[in-house]
């Protein structure tokens, strides 16, 4: 008996690496600390009522944000481990297998469990406030999306202490990801972590399309909608068309592994190349899914901090939609070297270059908005200004990669690595950080400290260029991605060492930001007006932090920058006070079903990962029961009485 348990544990838990044992200890200590604090201060009930069961879009947004920052930390540590190994390639700091696992989890986590939830966090924190709605269209579904993402991410992250990490690259190409070459649970963790959180992503896409199309405040026609909401619409359209492709592709891969099918195998009529073809049909739109909301954020930030209306609103909308559609016609540029026909390559090379046109339109519009504006260099604007040159270089190297004959030289070299980090960090991360700094006061009621933020900003920016510029050169010098070591005679040491220094500078930048957040909770400048940046759109017309029902009175929109127009009218004395008519506010009730149902999904994933079908069956039954129970729940909403609205507004300093 004892021997059996020991036997099981030795394969079930990952053993043998001191780094992993360190992680084990820190995980256990963190869990104990959380349980201890919650019990000591009697916060379990509070946690359950206020957070775990909430359907409030603002709280869900905050939970997305916290989760994504944790994932940024995990993905960042992965990156630093890799950089350490590459700076001293012969120290055996990481072994080949460990290195493979780390670059795999770094990629998957940064895209799917850092960028996506940070984006959904911003969707949730901003969109309903910006369009004058009191919640999203489907608040229950929204909570379910979050918990599916969260438990999917936890399942994936579990892999490095239990069972073993996936190590076949962030997109898990077959034949390497098939049973023959990757036995064991690692790849299954990858499949089910993404599969479960993918359901959540798809549901969020649907939720925000419906919210934006159906729940805008009266008077806000689509042509008066703020650009961030437009970018969310564009991104959500891409989500609902791209994510099903991912789900099916990974499901087919799972059938290959679990049921012995032959979709992507080397024999039996399978074709591994088909997997590349399918996964990039999702993968290419995916990078636009994450970058387009960043474009929306920059549009809001540039207009606010230049104190001007955005230049070329209509062309901005056109560009967002053009990018959404065009993104579905470029996927084959990820595998030009696969060896398909010349006409295919020509088509996809040109369609890739076409994307640069709407993107270029947007860059010019931001510049023209700043032109003769009264620019104030607050933190959101700093990140926006840093973004423009960074993304420009990233875009230019992207066009270089799109030139197919040249791509045969760059393919899978560090040139490519530098390119996509430049667009993903310079575009997506800088954009989301700008958005977080910009909307933080609306969510929390205080600004993030300016001075510490600037330290973080400069460490991030200088670190970025020190880290990635040498990698372009390393690519030209023949260094290929996913090398874990290289010989002394290659002449790559110096540049790799420089690159590692840059990576650690970005890490220091992140530490400054964490310090900034903890410092600002106590000392940050309080926002008493609800409009700390003198901004333009509806979310700034309500108090900070926003009350749970958002708008005491649903606004009547007349202008595209409605709040700015209202402020102007008030200043000119042309503003006509409308009589305030309070009504009971219809709100959704909290529900515990999303977290419970997602936990059953976790069981399904965990069961299939280890081939324990009984556990997956339990999970499926649980999911079905949750759906059944929810279908017959009729008491799902309530009305906030007028008195309570008046009291809440008064406590926030607004008399109605």
């Amino acid at each position, binding site marked *: 008996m004892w021997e059996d348990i020991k036997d099981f544990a030795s394969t079930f838990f990952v053993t043998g690496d001191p780094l992993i044992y360190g992680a084990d200890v820190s995980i256990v200590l963190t869990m104990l600390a959380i349980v201890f604090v919650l019990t000591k201060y009697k916060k379990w009930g509070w946690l359950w009522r206020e957070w775990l069961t909430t359907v409030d879009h603002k709280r869900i947004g905050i939970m997305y944000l916290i989760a994504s920052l944790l994932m940024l930390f995990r993905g960042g540590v992965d990156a630093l481990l890799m950089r350490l190994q590459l700076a001293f390639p012969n120290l055996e700091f990481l072994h080949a297998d460990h290195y493979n696992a780390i670059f795999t989890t770094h990629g998957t986590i940064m895209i799917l469990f850092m960028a996506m939830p940070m984006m959904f966090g911003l969707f949730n924190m901003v969109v309903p406030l910006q369009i004058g709605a009191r919640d999203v269209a489907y608040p229950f579904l929204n909570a379910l999306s979050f918990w599916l993402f969260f438990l999917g991410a936890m399942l994936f992250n579990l892999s490095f202490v239990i069972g073993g990490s996936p190590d076949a690259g962030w997109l898990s190409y077959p034949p390497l990801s098939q049973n023959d070459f990757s036995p064991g649970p690692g790849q299954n963790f990858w499949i089910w972590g993404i599969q479960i959180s993918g359901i959540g992503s798809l549901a969020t896409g649907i939720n925000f399309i419906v919210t934006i199309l159906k729940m805008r405040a009266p008077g806000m026609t689509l042509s008066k909608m703020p650009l961030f909401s437009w970018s969310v619409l564009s991104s959500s359209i891409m989500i609902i068309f791209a994510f099903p492709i991912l789900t099916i592709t990974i499901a087919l891969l799972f059938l290959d592994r679990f049921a012995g099918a032959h979709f992507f195998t080397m024999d039996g009529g399978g074709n591994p190349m088909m997997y590349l*073809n399918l996964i990039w049909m999702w993968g290419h739109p995916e990078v636009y899914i994450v970058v387009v909301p960043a474009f929306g954020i920059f549009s809001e930030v540039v207009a606010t901090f230049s104190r001007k209306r955005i230049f070329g609103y209509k062309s901005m909308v056109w560009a967002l939609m053009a990018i959404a559609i065009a993104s579905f016609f470029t996927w084959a540029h990820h595998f030009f070297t696969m060896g*398909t026909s010349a006409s295919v390559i020509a088509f996809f090379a040109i369609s890739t270059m076409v994307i640069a046109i709407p993107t270029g339109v947007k860059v010019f519009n931001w510049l023209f908005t700043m032109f003769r504006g009264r620019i104030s260099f607050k933190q959101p604007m700093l990140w926006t200004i840093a973004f423009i040159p960074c993304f420009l270089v990233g875009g230019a190297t992207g066009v270089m990669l799109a030139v197919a004959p040249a791509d045969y030289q760059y393919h899978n070299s560090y040139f490519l690595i530098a390119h996509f980090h430049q667009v993903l960090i310079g575009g997506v991360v800088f954009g989301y950080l700008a958005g977080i700094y910009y909307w933080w006061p609306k969510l929390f009621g205080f600004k993030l400290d300016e001075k510490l933020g600037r330290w973080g900003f400069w460490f991030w920016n200088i670190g970025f260029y020190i880290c990635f510029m040498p990698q372009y050169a390393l690519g030209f010098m023949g260094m290929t991605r996913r090398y874990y070591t290289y010989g002394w005679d290659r002449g790559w040491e110096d540049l790799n060492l420089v690159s590692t220094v840059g990576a650690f500078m970005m890490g220091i930048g992140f530490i400054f930001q964490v310090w900034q957040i903890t410092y600002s909770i106590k000392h940050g400048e309080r926002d008493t007006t609800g409009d700390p940046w003198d901004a333009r759109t509806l979310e700034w017309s309500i108090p900070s932090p926003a009350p749970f029902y958002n708008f005491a009175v649903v606004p009547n929109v007349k202008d595209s920058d409605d709040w700015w127009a209202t402020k102007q009218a008030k200043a000119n004395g042309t503003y006509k006070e409308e009589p305030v008519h309070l009504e009971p506010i*219809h709100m959704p009730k909290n529900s515990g079903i999303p977290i419970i149902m997602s936990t059953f999904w976790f069981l399904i994933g965990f069961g299939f990962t280890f081939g324990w079908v009984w556990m997956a069956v339990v999970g499926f039954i649980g999911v079905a029961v949750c759906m059944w129970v929810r279908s017959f729940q009729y008491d799902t909403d309530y009305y906030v009485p007028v008195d309570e609205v008046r009291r809440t507004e008064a406590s926030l300093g607004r008399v109605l």
Partner: protein
Amino acid sequence: MTQHQNHGGHQDHGSLKSYVIGFVLSIVLTIIPLVLVMNQMLEKTALVITILVMAILQFVVQLFFFMHIREGEKPRYNVQTLILGLVIVFTIIAGSIWIMMFNKY
């Protein structure tokens, strides 16, 4: 939830009868190709064509019986989305065939 007050004017979402018909049709359309494949009743080209026809019919059944493509007020977002979806489905299938043709030697 703001617009909840306006929910009164909704059409109803199909009847039990239409759901049962849709369910039976979709099951039949799934079983036909399964039986054909399991019992090897047709030769290859005919089999592929039959499966494709069944898939398209399945798609139509889903649209009319479960996705209520005929319902909904203007603007017809469901039809717009469907058209965009069809364009992308066409791209996926035609694009994949075109890209993977090289593999046929």
